[in-house]
C-alpha cells in the first residue's frame, strides 16, 4: 500500500492517468445517478435495481458486438429496449408500491435486482465480458512519463455529455419534461391541474431505465460487465445522489467525477481487489458525513 503511494509520488504522470480515467468513468456514473435522482425525486422510489439496469444495457451492447456489429450501435437499441423494459416493470411492480412505505419499494426493487442478475447469469454465464470497440489507444507524453487514452473512452465521454444535454433539454422544453418537473414538485397539485401522474411516473421510470441502459453500453466498452457487478453500480448511484441531493444537477456531476477519481485512486493504492470495498467505504463515509451535517440542525438523515 505504501509502495503504491510512493510510486504515485515518484511518477507524477500516474496521477494524470488516474485522474483522466476517473473523469471518463465518472461521466458514466453521473448518467446513472441522474436517473436515480429523477426517480427518487419524482416518485420517491429508491431503485435498488439501478445497477442491474446498467449491466443489462451493457449486455445488450456486448450481445450486439458478438453479432459482428459495432457495439456502439447497441446504444440506440439499448435505449429503446431498456425504455420498454422500464415501462413494463413499472406497470407490473413499481406502480403497486409507489404509494406504499418506502422500505417496500426498496425491497421490491431489491427483489428485481436479484431476478435480473440471476437471469443474466443464466443467459450469459458468470464470466467477465468486454464489448470490444476495436478503436486504438493513444499514448501521450507528460511530466517525464507517458499516459494512455483509449479513443473509445474519449468518445464515451462525448456521448455522455450529449446524452446529459439531451435529457436536460428534454426536461426543460418538452411537454412531458415539464409534467415530470411539476409532478416532482407536488404530485397532487399536478394531478389537479390535469396531469396524468400515473403516466408521468411510468415515463419517468422508463426514462431512468433507458438512461441506465445507455450508461451500461459505455461501461461495457470502456470497462467490464458481469452479471453480479450491478449492486456496486447501484451503490455508486446512491453515494452520488446522497452526497449531492436530488434536483441538484451540478452537484450530481461534481459528485460523480469525485467518486470516479476517488475510486480509481482507491483501486490503485489499496489494490484492485479492494476497489469494491472502496465504493462501499465511500457510501458509509458519505452517510456519516450527512449525519454530522444534519446533527448540527438536530435532525436525522431521512
Amino acid at each position, binding site marked *: 500500500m505504501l509502495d503504491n503511494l510512493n510510486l504515485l509520488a515518484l511518477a507524477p504522470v500516474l496521477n494524470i492517468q488516474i485522474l483522466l480515467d476517473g473523469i471518463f468513468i465518472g461521466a458514466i456514473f453521473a448518467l446513472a445517478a441522474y436517473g436515480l435522482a429523477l426517480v427518487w425525486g419524482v416518485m420517491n422510489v429508491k431503485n435498488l435495481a439501478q445497477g442491474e439496469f446498467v449491466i443489462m444495457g451493457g449486455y445488450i451492447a456486448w450481445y450486439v458486438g458478438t453479432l459482428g456489429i459495432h457495439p456502439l450501435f447497441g446504444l440506440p437499441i439499448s435505449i429503446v429496449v431498456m425504455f420498454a423494459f422500464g415501462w413494463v416493470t413499472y406497470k407490473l411492480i413499481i406502480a403497486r408500491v409507489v404509494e406504499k412505505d418506502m422500505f417496500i419499494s426498496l425491497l421490491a426493487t431489491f427483489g428485481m435486482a436479484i431476478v435480473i442478475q440471476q437471469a443474466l447469469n443464466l443467459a450469459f454465464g458468470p464470466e467477465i465480458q468486454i464489448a470490444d470497440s476495436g478503436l486504438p489507444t493513444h499514448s501521450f507524453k507528460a511530466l517525464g512519463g507517458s499516459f494512455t487514452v483509449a479513443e473509445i473512452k474519449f468518445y464515451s465521454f462525448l456521448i455522455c455529455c450529449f446524452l446529459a444535454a439531451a435529457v436536460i433539454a428534454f426536461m426543460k422544453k418538452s411537454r412531458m419534461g415539464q409534467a415530470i418537473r411539476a409532478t416532482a414538485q407536488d404530485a397532487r397539485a399536478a394531478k389537479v391541474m390535469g396531469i396524468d401522474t400515473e403516466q408521468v411516473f411510468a415515463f419517468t421510470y422508463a426514462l431512468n431505465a433507458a438512461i441506465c441502459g445507455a450508461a451500461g453500453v459505455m461501461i461495457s466498452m470502456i470497462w467490464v460487465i458481469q452479471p453480479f457487478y450491478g449492486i456496486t453500480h447501484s451503490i455508486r448511484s446512491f453515494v452520488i445522489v446522497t452526497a449531492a441531493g436530488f434536483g441538484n444537477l451540478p452537484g450530481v456531476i461534481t459528485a460523480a467525477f469525485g467518486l470516479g477519481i476517488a475510486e480509481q485512486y482507491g483501486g490503485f493504492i489499496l489494490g484492485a481487489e479492494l476497489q469494491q470495498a472502496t465504493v462501499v467505504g465511500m457510501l458509509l463515509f458519505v452517510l456519516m458525513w450527512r449525519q454530522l451535517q444534519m446533527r448540527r440542525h438536530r435532525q436525522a438523515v*431521512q
Partner: protein
Amino acid sequence: MMAVAEKSVEQDEVGKPTARRNYTANDIMMFGAIVLFGILGPILFPNYTFQIAVLWLMVLFAQTWDVMGGQMGYNSLGNIFFFGAGMYICTVTQIGLFTDVGAYTSSTDQGNFNFTPDQYYIGVAVGLVFAAIGSALLAVALGWIVFGLRGPYFAIGTLGIALAAGELIGAWEWVGGGGGIPIPVYPGSGDGKSFFYYVLCFASAIATFLFLKWLYSTRFGLAINAIRDDEEKAEAMGVHTLRHKTVAWAISAFFLGIAGGLFGNMTGFIEPLEVAFPTITFGIFMVAMALLGGKGTIWGPVLGAIVFHIVKEATWTYFLGWQWIALGVIIIINIVFFQQGIVGWLQEKYPHWFGIEVEGASK
C-alpha cells in the same frame, strides 16, 4: 412500571389494536406443536437433520430481524453482518485457543492440526460465547455510525456494512482471506455431529423466542414500539431513543452471532462471500421470512420462516437452475401483494384468535 406493560390492548399507528397479553391458549398450543416437531423431527426424518437444524436457524434469523424491522421500525438490510462476524469470531476462537491462527489458516493441510475432543468442545463453547458477545459489541459500535439514519438510508447503510465486511474479510489473509478457513473437525461420527448441532440450533431458536416474547412484554418492548410509531414523540416523552435502538440491535446481534458460530461449524468450511456474509441469500431471506409471516408480531417471523424454508427446500430441486430467479419472484410477489403477512392477515380476519377485541364487531 409493569402496569403499563400489562395493559392488554392498545392502538398502534394505523388504529389496529395490538394484543399484549403474555401467553394465550393459542400461544401455548403453537409453542407445544413447535417443540414437539423439534423433538420428533430428527427422529422421524433422520436424513433431514441438517435441513431441520437450518430451519431453526432461519426461525432465529427472522425473529432477530423482526426486533429491528418489525418492532422498532428500523428496516435493516445488513443484519447478516452479525451472522458472519459471529462465524469468524467463533472460528478464530476455536483455533486460536489451542494453536496459532495465522499458521492454521495459511497451512495447506489443516489435518496437521489435531484438536483433542476436549479441546474441540471447549473451543466451541468459548467460541460461541465470544461470538455472541463480540457481535453484540460490534452492534453497539456500529450503532454510533448508523442510528442517525432513517428509513431508506438506514437500510442502505446497513447493506453497505454487510457488503464492506465481506470484501474486507476477503482481503484479510490472517483469517484466510477469500480462500476461507476449514473448521476443526468434529471428533466423532457424522450422525453425532449433526445431532450435536441440531440440539444447539433448536435450543438457540427456542431461547431467542422465549427471550423476545418476554422482552416485548416489558417496558423496553413498549419503548421500541413507541420508536416505531413516532420517534420524535417517543423522544419527547423521555424515551432515550439512541440507547434503546442500540440495545435492540445488540440483542439481535447477540443471537445472530450464536447462529453464525453454529452454522460455520455445521458446514465445516467458511469463506467470506458465500457462507459468512451472504447478503443476497440469508441476508434477504431473513427480511422476506419476517414479511411473509407478518412483521411486528411474535409468531409472524416464526411461521414465515417455517413456511418459507419448507417451500424453498421442497421445490428447490425442481427449478433446475431457475431457483434463484424463482426466489426473487417470490420475494417480489410477497412484498407487492402480501405485505401484511400470514399473521397480519389472520389478525385482520380473526381478531378474537389473538385475544383482540374489536369494538362493535360480531364474533
